[in-house]
């Protein structure tokens, strides 16, 4: 074998590759593939259209609702939903007074503790069903429970610039 014949045989694909090539030619490009889309674009004369280059992917911002809740917070939300249901069923009496007192007291202390630490937030969410009358009834009852008059509240607020 001459040196030129040896070079040709080194570049030439083997028999199996030739068969695969011929099969692919006869099978054609399967529809639905990116190759088919490229051919389609070429047919429509868009062969020169620029490629899309992905520069950055910015993931979705985490929303407060998507944050996992601490187990205690999740239980509190469930309890709140049941209380709301009792009130809208016009059956607030089904919740024991001792339970209501414990919850009210704990929530009062929790809110004040947060406030002390500078963790200020709206006491009611935007979706609240609390009316102005509800708020006044509860504020009056709380003041009375700790033996305060409204003017004392006003004095404290002006002294402490709240």
């Amino acid at each position, binding site marked *: 074998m001459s040196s030129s014949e040896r070079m040709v045989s080194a570049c030439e694909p083997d028999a199996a590759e030739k068969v695969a090539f011929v099969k692919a030619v006869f099978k054609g490009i399967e529809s639905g593939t*990116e190759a088919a*889309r490229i051919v389609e*674009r070429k047919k*429509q004369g*868009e062969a020169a*259209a*620029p*490629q*899309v*280059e*992905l*520069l*950055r*992917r*910015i*993931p*979705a*911002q985490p929303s407060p609702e998507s944050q996992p809740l601490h187990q205690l917070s999740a239980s509190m939300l469930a309890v709140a939903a049941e209380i709301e249901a009792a009130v809208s069923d016009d059956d607030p009496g089904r919740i024991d007074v001792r339970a209501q007192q414990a919850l009210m007291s704990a929530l009062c202390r929790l809110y004040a503790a947060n406030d002390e630490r500078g963790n200020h937030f709206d006491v009611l969410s*935007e979706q609240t069903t609390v009316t102005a009358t509800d708020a006044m009834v509860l504020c009056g009852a709380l003041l009375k429970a700790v033996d305060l008059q409204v003017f004392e509240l006003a004095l404290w607020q002006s002294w402490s610039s709240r």
Partner: protein
Amino acid sequence: MGEQYVCKSFEFKDGERRIIRIGDDEIGVFRHEGEFFAYSNYCVHQGGPACEGLIIARVEERLRPDKTSMGLFFSEKDMSFACPWHGYEYDMRTGQHIADRRVRLRKYQVLQKGEDIYVVV
């Protein structure tokens, strides 16, 4: 230039954004509540990356029937995205500046063909 293939819809999660380059254009593609929107990533203010800042609910003032203010609230339906350079805020659905509707980002049409997403340039 026509339709340019971006990706498959299942690869593009809701709330996600992609910044792509097609020729000389840099484009921000958003998926918001299942819909696709695409805008030029060049802010009309000073050319900042308009589509790469915070996505936030529009702030609106609610009024009582007698027109007294109830205060400022985050809208539950209208979303905007803010340019991270100086805070120009654009409407997610139209690309218009929220304070001056005459000012807007260039909007590109997004086509969904089956699972394939295309931007029309």
